[in-house]
């Protein structure tokens, strides 16, 4: 199924070391669209990371419409989540990924995602 998010996902995936990019419905933790390498369990990542993102936003008092960004770092890699409204852009990075480049790509994609949500 074609969605309007293909270009955004491709841009995030083009950052070195990114193994998955997902557009996720924040409230539901469900994948709206995504590109993942073999071995990345997109649906599980989306459900768990969206849950953490929601809690982090609630804990910090982050309001809808403002840029929100959460980064999780572990031994095996990182997960980045950015969004403004109901949808968020997630990226799954391998350990030796270029985190700085990926962060910029995810945040820009999240801005464009919010713009697309505004048009809908």
């Amino acid at each position: 199924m074609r969605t309007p998010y293909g270009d955004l996902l491709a841009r995030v995936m083009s950052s070195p070391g990114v193994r998955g990019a997902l557009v996720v419905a924040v409230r539901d933790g469900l994948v709206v669209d995504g590109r993942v390498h073999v071995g990345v369990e997109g649906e599980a990542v989306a459900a768990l990371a969206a849950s953490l993102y929601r809690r982090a936003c609630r804990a910090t008092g982050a309001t809808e419409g403002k840029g929100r960004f959460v980064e999780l770092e572990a031994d095996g890699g990182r997960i980045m989540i950015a969004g403004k409204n109901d949808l968020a852009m997630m990226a799954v990075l391998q350990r030796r990924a270029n985190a700085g480049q990926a962060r910029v790509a995810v945040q820009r994609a999240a801005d464009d995602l919010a713009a697309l949500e505004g048009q809908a």
Partner: protein
Amino acid sequence: MERLEIKQIQDAFDEPLRVFVRESGVGLAVLINRSGQVLAQHGFDKVFDLVGVASLAAGINASSRALANQLGEEQFEHLHHAGRARQLFLGHFDSGAGQLMLVAVFDDRSSIGLVRLFFEQFVGGIRRLPSMDASRKAVSAAEFEAELETSLDKFFQDLIGG
């Protein structure tokens, strides 16, 4: 297939249900069989009528199965009803104890994504339980006869010997 005692089933499901509730963050969970009999539950008190929820859920399952048949499906995988504050999830699966259904009620501390994720793990955990192995083969008539013969031989030998 061997028949399992209801108490044996209830004991087997207790721990997996506790893990599901803890991991998914749901407030209420009840495991029922197709006739609405409660096998395990978490979170119900006087405010939430356990038997009422179980029998209504069994009814929803039966209705959705009929609807699925009309649409050419055997059965829908999951059912999800979203309200403003609370959401309801119904997921069914086959086990050594027949077809079972998990009903979970959750609010914004959880999500349908999380519930689906941990439901799959719950089902996997149940299927790994030795007493819930759905693939246990039925005893054939020939095997039953041979086993009965051996048991009777042993019984009479013990009787004569004793």
